[in-house]
């Protein structure tokens, strides 16, 4: 059977175009025409049809903390948020650091998730930064990248060995650039606001220092490297220099760092405690510009579910992170509506670039690409009520805020997973 999307506004990040048109999906793959056999028509009513979002860095709390998020709840939330591929983090309890745990995760994901799940594995055993994991076996078992998530491999010798070994397998290493010494114990970004609130703080310089170190190690080892989140203007020159010198380096940013700033913490609101901490307004603007001009490659939700108990604590003691699967698209629409970025460019960062970085065929609307699609109305307004979110955890910083952008339908491999 062929799916025929009519009357669509096609957002194609590959060609950078935003044009009215039709799209055909047959046997789960985008094709040029309807071909033979029955055709089911989907009237898009002039709304946007774009490749599904590929979200790198989704935390699903299986194994270990299924009360915070499961593959089922995350899959439903992702589908409702237009995300068709979740690239999941290994910072679970226990960490995903052996092929056996990875296999468990894959089995759970296949059984329960409405959208595609590609797991990442830990770079070092137990994410302890001492010994590398079985990168070869884990790659064979399906790990698409290796990361210790928010833990930095402090020992440069260990990290350089991991990178060297990963390079021999062509494995992608994802790191969290944050100088461990400067950032220890920090809850917010240093500055006037942090000092007045009396909270332990870290200078954004910690990010640049760690990125500088990592770039030197990449120059030394030639590994494939992705910085999970670059959030401060000072880190950008190191990134640009590395790219100019031909290193295989990319960088991402989380949506919260593009839509919120340090002052949003306000009166110790722990839903705004994320890692790295929210930055200054100058940094926020600089990161939006870097995303728009391609210096930052990938935009992600950094979905981190936390239950009420871990957030209802004094700010310093509260857990970090925010859920983002369902708010990524409407929050990103703020950037579009503010005139910072156009839709095809935004989708390059949400879909095409992350797919390319992981060697996936997703992120395109051309024939042969998977039928992973999102149909959305970029202008539909709503007020977010966190208790309507499908994630098990409701820790969103956007609660009660006015947002625009509603997902009408989501398809994975030509099968509708969200919408009527």
């Amino acid at each position, binding site marked *: 059977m062929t799916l025929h999307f009519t009357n669509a506004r096609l957002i194609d990040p590959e060609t950078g175009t935003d044009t009215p048109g039709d799209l055909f999906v047959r046997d789960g793959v985008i094709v040029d025409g309807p071909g033979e056999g029955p055709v089911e028509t989907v009237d898009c009513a002039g709304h946007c049809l774009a490749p599904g979002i590929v979200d790198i860095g989704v935390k699903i709390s299986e194994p270990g903390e299924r009360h915070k998020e499961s593959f089922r709840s995350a899959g439903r939330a992702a589908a409702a948020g237009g995300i068709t591929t979740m690239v999941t983090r290994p910072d679970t309890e226990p960490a995903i650091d052996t092929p056996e745990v990875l296999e468990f995760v894959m089995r759970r994901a296949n059984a329960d998730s409405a959208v595609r799940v590609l797991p990442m594995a830990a770079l070092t055993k137990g994410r302890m930064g001492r010994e590398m994991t079985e990168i070869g076996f884990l790659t064979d078992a399906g790990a698409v990248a290796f990361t210790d998530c928010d833990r930095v491999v402090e020992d440069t010798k260990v990290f350089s060995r991991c990178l060297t070994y990963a390079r021999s397998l062509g494995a992608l290493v994802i790191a969290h650039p944050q100088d461990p010494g400067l950032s220890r114990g920090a809850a917010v970004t*240093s*500055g*006037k*606001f*942090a*000092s*007045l*609130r*009396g*909270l332990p*703080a870290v*200078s954004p310089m910690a990010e640049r220092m760690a990125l500088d170190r990592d770039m030197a190690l990449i120059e030394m080892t030639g590994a494939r490297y992705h910085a999970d989140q670059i959030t401060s203007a000072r880190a950008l020159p190191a990134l640009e220099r590395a790219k100019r010198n031909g290193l295989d380096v990319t960088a991402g940013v989380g949506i919260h760092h593009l839509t919120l700033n340090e002052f949003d913490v306000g*009166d*110790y*609101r*722990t*839903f705004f405690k994320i890692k790295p901490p929210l930055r200054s307004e100058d940094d926020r603007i600089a990161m939006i510009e870097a995303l728009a001009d391609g210096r930052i490659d990938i935009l992600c939700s950094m979905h981190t579910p936390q239950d*009420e*108990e871990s*957030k*209802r*604590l*004094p*700010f*310093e*003691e*509260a857990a970090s992170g925010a859920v983002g699967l369902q708010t990524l698209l409407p929050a990103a629409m703020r950037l579009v509506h503010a005139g910072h970025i156009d839709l095809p460019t935004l989708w390059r960062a949400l879909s095409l670039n992350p797919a390319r970085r992981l060697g996936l065929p997703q992120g395109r609307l051309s024939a042969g690409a998977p039928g992973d699609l999102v149909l959305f109305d970029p202008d539909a307004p709503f007020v977010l009520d966190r208790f309507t979110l499908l994630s098990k955890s409701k820790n969103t910083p956007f*609660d009660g805020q006015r947002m625009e952008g509603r997902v009408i339908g989501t398809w994975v491999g030509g099968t509708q997973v969200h919408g009527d």
Partner: protein
Amino acid sequence: MTFRHRHLLGIEPLHPVEITTILDLADRYVDLNRGARKHGDALAGLTQVNMFFENSTRTQASFELAGKRLGADVMNMSMQASSIKKGETLIDTAMTLNAMHPDLLVVRHPHSGAVNLLAEKVNCAVLNAGDGRHEHPTQALLDALTIRRAKGRLHRLSIAICGDIAHSRVARSNILLLGKMENRIRLVGPPTLMPAGVADWGVEVFDDMRAGLEGVDVVMMLRLQKERMDGGFIPSEREYYHRYGLDAEKLSCARPDAIVMHPGPMNRGVEIDGTLADDINRSVIQEQVEMGVAVRMAAMDLLARNRAAPPAREVMA
């Protein structure tokens, strides 16, 4: 009466008129405290609970005495020995206590913002007795009262706050209060003990003590908070004393009638010379303690008058 708050969580939300209201009332309580019969009835029939999640002798004693002198039933809870150790969260502790219907809750906590969090969950009036490095409002108020009584005014004074600014909630509350009352504030201390972004606070910053004390009316020393430091803010106590400890020689840079203050407890020979601290012509450290009781009586009295409280909103942090 111009004081419209349910809680006293910090100096930040206070209007200068409200600060004056507290100080004026405190002045009256100073007289009461100096009289033979030290008893009022402003808090009669009310229950005051002191919850100290951090060690304190003087602040807790001061609050206790203030409550008792105004007729409140006072209960002290040392939270270090209580259910917190058994894993109960701050919110649960607050809810449990709330169910016992206290009227005034005095809280000290080692984490910044913890008292604000607690205040959202209870029906009674909450007084912040110091939260982390955030605020210590009654200390700033008692310092203000001491200055006003010694100098005859609380505006257009030049005030140096010296020492460990970074770890000090006393400094933050004092900077806010003295700034609101339109004084010139100088911060003096080694750069490692200055908070980040201090240049945007509307204060002058000095790392040379003599230059910082030049011509000031008030010298406010801070305690070196050894318990909040994890290593290496200063090379040694003796070098710190040499460069930033207040002695007669450094004090000679200030105005001849400048007063010396310290929130206590003092580290003699670290941030202040012992003889100077005891010099009744310059040091008002004992007056500060006296003013502390009066200011706390005034603050609790005003909050109790505002106690036609609506039920606490259930607010997520």
